[in-house]
């Protein structure tokens, strides 16, 4: 029996027209299996999700890249935190970004190629559609949010997600605002014993159609470029309509979904590592529950910005400045302060991955039914290199991906990781990327 066959929305609408505003519906226990996975009981397979994670200025390869490849690789010191989730992730090293004659736009070319497959000509050239949007347009259209994007930097201009060149997806930077957006008044707890559709939402829905008509009238008066923006407006309104429809529909129960405790205030503003860590963890915990509650199936998180501006209390140089000015320690053979900042980023990557393993879903965890792609802007940050980059994936994408591997990419393109990830997500792409960054060569060693 499927919940949607009950046609509750229609029933409720009828009730509302009769003036009844609160309707109690029983929990549909019959839908819950032993693990509490509603989807299993409804005969639908668990949904696949896709996420990305970003950090700036790469890793200290000397203490990061394992000697061994394949499974069971040793974990060098900077990779240490990843040991906790080693069986859930794949590590890619020795990746290249190809410039194809374009300039090395420091802190820009690297991550843009990693997410769009194309080397930008100038920094004025905005990324265009990033891979998360390619995936979201395929798998994200049924949920309340097509994508969610957050950034722990505290700067609402730092985003890694673009719909197109002129439309970045604004990131959530405030845990308080993110909580309110996800779990505030408009959140429908799928497991709530009582379902009370708001009559207010119904009238709001009807007013929106008048707004849609206004867009159609405006389209006649504007030029072609602006018409595209009106289309975006139209799409956005349709999205709002869908959200309102969902609010009027009793959701299917989801055992893994538990609205988190409310966030009452934001952590302190600033880019000091401890503050960034706190913000990152609060945003991560909310993101995990947003996914568990099926509010979105595609999400992005940025720990730091490209050219990371993270600072350490009492130390005058931000991460980026350190990469340029700190001498290489002759004993260690690397820049120790710079390595400190990279290690803090890797610690947060491990936290991010681990957070998704803590939610049970079906026979495994939430992470088993998703794939996360993590990338950065440079290989060796000290010289802004575009070779020797590292990247990760995490999760098994519902069994489509093998994990626990270290893959030496042999100086092949960074686009291969993104391409492999998209293929694993079921995106039918014969190839991806432009010129030298174009690839049709997925990492077969991780595909199940």
């Amino acid at each position, binding site marked *: 029996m499927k919940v949607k066959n009950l046609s509750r929305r229609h029933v409720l609408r009828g009730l509302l027209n009769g003036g009844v505003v609160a309707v109690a519906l029983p929990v549909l226990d019959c839908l819950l299996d032993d693990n509490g996975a509603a989807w299993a009981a409804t005969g639908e397979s668990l949904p696949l999700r896709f996420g990305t994670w970003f950090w700036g200025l790469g890793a200290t390869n000397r203490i990061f890249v394992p000697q061994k490849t394949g499974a069971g690789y040793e974990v060098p010191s900077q990779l240490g935190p990843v040991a906790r989730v080693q069986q859930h992730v794949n590590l890619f090293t020795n990746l290249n970004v190809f410039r194809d004659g374009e300039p090395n*736009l*420091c*802190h*820009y070319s690297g991550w843009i190629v990693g997410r769009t497959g194309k080397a930008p000509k*100038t*920094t*004025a050239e*905005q990324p265009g559609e990033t891979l998360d949007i390619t995936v979201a347009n395929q798998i994200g259209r049924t949920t309340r949010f097509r994508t969610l994007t957050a950034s722990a*930097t*505290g*700067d*609402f201009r730092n985003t890694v997600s673009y*719909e*197109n060149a*002129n*439309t*970045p*997806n*604004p990131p959530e930077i405030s845990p308080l*605002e993110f909580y309110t957006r996800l779990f505030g008044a408009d959140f429908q707890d799928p497991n709530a014993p009582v379902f009370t559709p708001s*009559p*207010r939402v119904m*009238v*709001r829905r*009807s*007013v*929106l159609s008048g*707004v849609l008509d206004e867009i159609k009238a*405006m389209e006649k008066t*504007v*030029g072609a470029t*602006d018409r*595209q*923006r*009106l289309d*975006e*407006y139209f799409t*956005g*309104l349709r*999205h*709002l309509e869908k*959200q309102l429809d969902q609010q009027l529909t009793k959701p299917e129960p989801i055992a893994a979904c538990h609205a988190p405790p409310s966030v009452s205030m934001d952590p302190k*503003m600033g*880019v*000091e590592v401890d503050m960034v860590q706190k913000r990152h963890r609060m945003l991560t915990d909310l993101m995990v529950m947003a996914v568990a509650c099926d509010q979105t199936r595609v999400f992005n998180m940025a720990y730091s910005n490209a*050219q990371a501006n993270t*600072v350490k*209390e*009492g130390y*005058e*140089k*931000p991460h*980026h*400045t350190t990469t*340029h*000015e700190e*001498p290489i320690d002759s004993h260690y053979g690397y820049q120790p302060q710079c390595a400190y900042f990279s290690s803090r980023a890797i610690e947060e990557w491990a936290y991010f991955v681990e957070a998704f393993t803590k939610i049970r879903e079906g026979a495994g965890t939430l992470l088993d039914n998703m794939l996360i792609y993590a990338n950065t802007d440079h290989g060796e940050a*000290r*010289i*802004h290199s575009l070779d020797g980059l590292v990247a990760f994936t995490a999760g098994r994408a519902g069994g489509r991906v093998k994990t626990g591997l270290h893959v030496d990419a042999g100086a092949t393109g960074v686009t291969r990781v993104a391409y492999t990830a998209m293929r694993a997500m079921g995106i039918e792409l014969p190839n991806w990327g432009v010129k030298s960054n174009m690839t049709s060569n997925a990492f077969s060693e991780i595909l199940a």
Partner: protein
Amino acid sequence: MLQRLLGGGPQSRKKKVLLGGGALAAVLLAAVVVGAMRGPAEPQSKGTPRSMRLLTQDQYLNTVAYVFGPNVQPTTRFAALPRIDGLLASGAAIAGLSDAQLETYQKTATKVAAQIVSEDSRPYLIPCEPAATDAADPQCAKEFLAQVAPLLYRRALSEEQIDRFVAAANQSADALHDFYQGLSVVVEGILMSPNVLLVAEVSEPDPDHPGETRLDSWSLATRLSLFLWNAAPDAELLAAAQSGALQTKKGLAAQVDRMLASPRLETGVRALFDDMFAFEDFNRLAKDNTIYPAFTGETAVDAREQTLRTVVDHLLVRRADYRDLFTTRKTFMSPSLAPIYKVAAQGPGWTPYEFPADDPHAGLLTHVSFEALHSHPGRSSPTLRGKALREVMLCQTVPRPPANVDFSKVQNPDGSVKTARERIDFHLQNPSCAGCHRIMDPMGLSMEAFDGAGTFRHEENGVPIDTSGNLDGVEFTDIVGLAKALRDNPQVPWCAVRRTFAYGTGTPADSNDRRVLEYLSAEFAGQGYVFPELLRDIALSRAFRKVYEPHLRKTFPLPDLKSAERPQQTASAEPASAIHP
């Protein structure tokens, strides 16, 4: 005034010399006869592009506050706009709309509507009482909606349109058994309208100039109002648009003068300079508490406010020379800024303050807002400051750093380096760095007189700071010398004219605007660099209301003022973060 009577701009003054003093009376007479109270006529131009802009967050909030009262203040955050050619205002003409942005619009509309019909607000904001609060009241709904909807749509609305809103209000009131809730649903809808949230300009044939197009009255009213008030037009401006008066020379001047005399002008000028000075960076500014314990979150808020207060006082209250903003010692002080400036505790609140004549604080460059904003959390940055001076104050673009520089050659492992001048000396030794750093470092190093929090200092790590430098060939020995050199740099007023024009018209200035900008610059100079006169000249210029379809435009980067005699710079959108420390 006399100067204006005599012809205003530099070119007409030249004419006066040629004619000789004896001809003065004749010139005066001629001026009166032809009605030419101004300098040379505005040169022909293509006008400016007809654009579609996103209403910015501040424009939205200001409008809502003017229409519904200052208590209606929803908390919100619209998506970031790209900075194009130095202005977020220009970015609003290309920024796209994401689903998340539409969600924000809706959440904000809900908050505004709820505040309007709240039991506290309704007696003030709704001009009538419904016959019964639990049912529709078409008459009262109409009275309210006919009053506010045109102000939000920025144009007169047809009877049918108002009736549609009233019908929706009635329907919603019936469904919800609440007159006020019904009304609030309609307000939400209005605040979601693309006609409200997008500023899509409409053009029409110009009857006075066959073959040319101009903004229609409503679009002109909106362009003027966003320019001068950073808000939608008020009822009087809309009335002038409706009657057609706004399209007449006299009617336009009357409205512009009224707007310039309005208290809303301060809001508009603050918005212009907040944008021009890239003060949105304050939203993320924080300093390292262990290094700069006196710099708190409040300091950052007050630093921004101090400069905006100084700008308003200098330009609008005193109507002083724009260039003197860079040397004035008059400012305002707050309790949280006093320790940073090392002056006696002030307050409570803001008090006017003037630095002594021999004090190193002179002009905007010496404000905390400039020195702290263009620094790192834990230390100063000559490069960031030099770059900001070039880009913000002089409208130039510093090229990006080169790739693949091996910094191992220029790192300073021995710890003997004490000052920034020694630290960044390698920029000038390395040919690939020197080209650009020569245009930033000589003035950036002079600003080393201020630490990363903006506090004046004589030494760094126990070593006296050498604050000598030069700006485009003008040598100086200290920060006050830099301030004077900047004040006298011809690029400063040129930059102000260029940015103000672009801000007002909503799209970046380019080579098509060159002759108009030169004309406006000459007028600005002739009027003694009085800023409200520049605003007036721009608002009344033909280029401001003459428009063309953007795709017809062939653009070239706008070079510097010819007289500044320096290498040509290119204009492009560069993220501020793309620079070495």
